[in-house]
């Protein structure tokens, strides 16, 4: 049975197990590239002790599936896996995993970066940080729109910079 390509979950994930499952039984694989995003203990408003992640059930999975399809079209990769956590996360916890397998490193590196750039601006997740000053929604960064533009995809997720 094929493993799911996308998981949205509250529980933590294990990088080693995910990578093993991604490449297991596929002798063509010569490279696996993975990215893990974690909760920083500092944000724009100072110290962050926890964060709450909201998402749009249904759309989230569809959007990420479409991103993986696009990565498969653009890069010579074998398999890709995205795990994204939702709910309440403490500082230093893992938030997101992207892992890609291919024959050679270049395609795996590229596809992994492409998927993260895409996910940052096109997947419906929202972070709310809890700081000593209270809880606040995190602002989107226009630098993430610029990152996606490098792949030839125009987007306008972040609000235009003021001033």
């Amino acid at each position: 049975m094929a493993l799911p390509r996308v998981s949205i979950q509250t529980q933590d994930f294990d990088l080693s197990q995910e990578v093993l499952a991604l490449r297991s039984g596929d002798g063509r694989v010569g490279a696996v590239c993975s990215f893990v995003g974690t909760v920083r203990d500092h944000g724009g408003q100072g110290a962050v002790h926890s964060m709450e992640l909201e998402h749009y059930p249904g759309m989230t999975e569809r959007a990420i599936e479409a991103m993986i399809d696009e990565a498969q079209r653009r890069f010579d990769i074998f398999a890709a896996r995205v795990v994204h956590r939702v709910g309440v996360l403490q500082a230093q916890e893992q938030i997101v995993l992207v892992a890609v397998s291919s024959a050679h490193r270049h395609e795996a590196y590229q596809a992994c970066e492409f998927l993260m750039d895409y996910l940052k601006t096109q997947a419906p997740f929202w972070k709310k940080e809890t700081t000593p000053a209270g809880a606040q929604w995190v602002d989107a960064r226009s630098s993430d729109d610029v990152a996606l533009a490098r792949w030839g995809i125009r987007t306008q997720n972040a609000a235009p910079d003021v001033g």
Partner: protein
Amino acid sequence: MRVTVRYFASVREALGLGTEDLQTGQSTLAGLRAELCARGGEYADSLAPERPVRMALNQVMCLDEATPLHEGCEVAFFPPVTGG
């Protein structure tokens, strides 16, 4: 036509509402947004044209406000996304 409207994150919090089913005479996303703004109060504030509100139609991100609505569709309004 009947439309399901969903709100997320700061928009959901401001409106105190995650979803509503409504009947609208509007035919586009822009029309629906303007109709909701016309309710005044938090709607006018959260969905104001100058706000960076992003939209999805049937769970697909939609950049073009002129996109037509259809019977039974699901529209979502939300702030810029911040996952990853």
